[in-house]
């Protein structure tokens, strides 16, 4: 099949799966998950074919796969939409296809396919377990199947469609369409267990927070279309004329060029979607959704989409940069670096295994954004890819841990939170596969030297920051990396090492193959994905493998970015922070007894409280935005405007109308109209009553009457006619 046709077809199977499941197969759990996983497999296959065809093309950045069709008439021209795969979207497609397929497969096991129906389960709530009796007549509580199993696969199918659309599209509008489809699906999936009030609150929060970014992004798209007349990537980002023109036109807003302003507007979309400060608040709450959803949102798709878009628009951000930086890039770098450190500190104090990962995701996305801000284009894309793999692995691993813990909870009947890391411990013996894969993912996240993918990508960012003289960014990111290693080791130590702290943890059980197989595959990528981007000048092993990633993805830009020269300082820094953080984490949290407090909390309780409450951002936003919004809607709009002014006016109109109506009735209708009618009627009645006496019924009297009448008229006639 022609590659272009294939690219058009990639997003379609998940969409078809969505409609098939929703319309026809939702009663059968087996058919539904087969359809969904099959669709993911088809898309994966298409993506792999496209990817491997792409990497065989020399100088792929110049000879991309693209195809478009006229869609909307826009004045004299057509607005075209189409698909394109260039180096950046090729690598994105690669990791998206893999993670999506893994997540689909994992969902089968996560939602307890093959388990009995729950005793008290109902749609909209998590399964609560089913009671079964074994051959000896003993009663056991085992995990029960998700009541809305088919619906879940339909939703993630639509989600996957959104992501594939976003990756293969060749213009910002179809990207935005895919972006918004994902926004809708994330809303539906975060609130998948909609009977939980917290899930409902989280879904609304996620939707509205990302909407803030999307509004600015739409403004940016409109602005871009207004000044260039196109939204195609190639025509804008690969076109020096357009870029120069945009860079030279001032926008009259805080001294930015048009390119910079559009770039920042679009980048605010990224801030919302990729949960950067100050719109980061929705992502931790999104943990209310089922774990595969967290992985979908936090690793493979939605948040990656934000960074992907930011990387896409990098030529705009950097347009007009003579020596490295522009104002827009400075803004991006600040947001990224600040977010990286800020959320890494919050992650230190979270006890929920998934929340730690959520903050870690925000922090790592901040890394990529900061890398972009300092011009490390390739490093940002590299970290995007490696992070997608190891973060998907970590999320799926944490889901597996929670699943194992839930098994223990059902078995022992303890009432504990299966997501709280302080209830775990010692799981390495119970869940070896989950442990080893989680360990790989965690080490990749902390940048464990040489063997993990995270090391190479993170090291490249640090090297770029140091090499180009952005010492402040470098320092911030290095500190964030130290914290990352620390909280990762804290997580691993609390969860898997030491002794079990609860009975449930003692009875945890390894999860089925549908869950562990994706973990193993993702673990392979978490290690191997780094090998494609080893810098050439790296001591000892540099140059053994060509730095393929740099050459390939760098080709997306007009000029191939220069690889930064090797410097020992960032390398040593990253070695020290990764190993030091890991060691510290292990040192502090090893052998924590059951019921013990967090050692950090004991050491610096005030700091811990601030971190635990996420710097009170939720409370701050509650005071700044949510309460005023409620006040505006309840007091101002509803009470004053609606019930006071509008209703008041209506009531006044009604009252005046009533008065006028009464007056008309009393002074016009009743006396004049009714009076006249009554008068006519009464008169006729009276007349009839008075004259009824002459109607005797006697024929002779009538004839006398007729005679006299005749005589009278004759006389009258005589006088009138003959006496004139």
């Amino acid at each position, binding site marked *: 099949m022609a590659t272009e046709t294939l690219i058009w077809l990639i997003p379609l199977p998940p969409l078809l799966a969505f409609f098939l499941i929703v319309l026809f197969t939702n009663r059968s759990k087996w058919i539904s998950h087969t359809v969904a996983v099959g669709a993911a497999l088809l898309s994966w296959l298409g993506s792999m074919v496209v990817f491997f065809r792409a990497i065989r093309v020399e100088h792929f950045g110049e000879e991309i796969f693209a195809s478009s069709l006229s869609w909307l008439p826009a004045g004299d021209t057509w607005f075209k939409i189409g698909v394109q795969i260039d180096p950046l979207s090729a690598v994105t497609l690669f990791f998206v296809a893999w993670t999506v397929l893994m997540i689909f497969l994992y969902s089968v096991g996560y939602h307890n396919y093959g388990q009995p129906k729950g005793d008290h389960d109902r749609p909209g709530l998590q399964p609560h377990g089913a009671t079964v009796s074994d051959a000896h007549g003993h009663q056991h509580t085992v995990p029960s199947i998700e009541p809305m199993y088919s619906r879940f696969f339909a939703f993630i199918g639509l989600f996957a469609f959104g992501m594939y659309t976003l990756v293969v599209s060749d213009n910002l509008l179809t990207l935005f369409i895919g972006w918004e489809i994902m926004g809708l699906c994330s809303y539906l999936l975060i609130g998948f267990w909609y009977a939980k009030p917290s899930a409902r609150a989280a879904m609304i929060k996620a939707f509205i927070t990302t909407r803030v970014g999307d509004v600015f992004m739409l403004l940016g798209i409109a602005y871009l279309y207004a000044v260039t007349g196109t939204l195609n990537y190639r025509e804008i980002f690969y076109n020096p004329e357009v870029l120069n023109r945009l860079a030279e036109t001032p926008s009259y807003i805080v001294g930015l060029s048009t390119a910079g302003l559009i770039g920042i507007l679009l980048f605010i979309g990224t801030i919302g979607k990729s949960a950067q400060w100050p719109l980061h608040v929705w992502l931790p709450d999104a943990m209310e959704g089922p774990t595969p959803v967290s992985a979908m949102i936090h690793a493979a798709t939605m948040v990656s989409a934000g960074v992907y878009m930011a990387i896409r628009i990098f030529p705009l951000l950097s347009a007009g940069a003579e020596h490295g930086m522009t104002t827009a890039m400075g803004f991006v770098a600040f947001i990224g670096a600040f977010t990286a450190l800020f959320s890494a500190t919050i992650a230190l104090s979270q006890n929920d295994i998934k929340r730690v990962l959520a903050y870690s995701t925000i922090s790592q996305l901040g890394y990529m954004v900061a890398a972009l801000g300092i011009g490390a284009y390739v490093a940002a894309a590299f970290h995007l890819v490696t992070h997608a793999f190891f973060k998907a692995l970590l999320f799926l691993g944490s889901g597996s841990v929670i699943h194992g813990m839930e098994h223990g909870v059902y078995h022992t009947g303890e009432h504990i939170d299966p997501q709280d890391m302080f209830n775990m411990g010692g799981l390495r013996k119970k869940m070896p596969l989950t442990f080893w894969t989680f360990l790989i993912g965690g080490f990749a996240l902390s940048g464990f030297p040489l063997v993990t993918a995270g090391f190479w990508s993170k090291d490249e960012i640090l090297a770029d920051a140091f090499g180009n003289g952005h010492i402040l960014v470098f320092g911030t990111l290095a500190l964030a990396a130290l914290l990352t290693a620390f909280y990762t080791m804290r997580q691993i130590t609390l969860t898997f090492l030491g002794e079990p702290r609860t009975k449930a943890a003692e009875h945890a059980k390894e999860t089925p193959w549908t869950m562990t197989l994706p973990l193993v595959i993702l673990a392979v990528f978490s290690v191997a994905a780094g090998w494609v981007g080893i810098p050439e000048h790296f001591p000892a092993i540099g140059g053994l493998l060509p730095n393929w990633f740099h050459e390939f993805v760098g080709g997306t830009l007009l000029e191939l970015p220069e690889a930064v020269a090797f410097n020992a300082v960032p390398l040593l820094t990253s070695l020290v922070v990764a190993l030091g953080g890991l060691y510290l984490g292990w040192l502090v949290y090893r052998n924590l007894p059951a019921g013990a407090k967090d050692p950090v909390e004991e050491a610096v309780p005030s700091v811990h409280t601030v971190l635990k409450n996420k710097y009170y951002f939720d409370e701050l936003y509650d005071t700044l935005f949510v309460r005023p919004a409620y006040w505006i809607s309840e007091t101002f709009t509803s009470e004053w405007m609606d019930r006071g002014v509008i209703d008041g006016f209506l009531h006044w109109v009604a009252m005046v109308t009533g008065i006028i109506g009464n007056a008309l009735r009393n002074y016009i209708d009743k006396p004049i109209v009714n009076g006249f009618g009554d008068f006519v009627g009464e008169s006729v009645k009276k007349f009839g009553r008075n004259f009824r006496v002459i109607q005797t*019924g006697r024929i*002779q009297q009538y*004839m*006398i009457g007729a*005679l006299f009448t005749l005589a009278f008229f004759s006389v009258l006639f005589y006088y009138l006619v003959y006496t004139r």
Partner: protein
Amino acid sequence: MMISLSYYLIFSAALFSIGLFGVLARKNAVAILMGVELMLNAVNVNLVAFWRFRTPELIAGQAFAIMVFAVAAAEVAVGLALIISIYRRRNTVVADDIDMLKL
């Protein structure tokens, strides 16, 4: 000498008046009917007299008179039938008692 037209007309008027008086004053319905006949015949006398004195060359006057006879005969037949019918139902032929027109 020939009897002049006025005598005929006076006679006719007298006959009409007698008939009219009979119609208005008699109680018996049959007598009222007879009064009607008198009035009709007074008309006939008029018609024939005017024909004889004014247009003897035409036949219209006689034709009208004949027609009045025919109509009068029919009227009497119907009228008598009605009177008999009323008599059978109400056992009276007194005109004042037959006040069904009131209802």
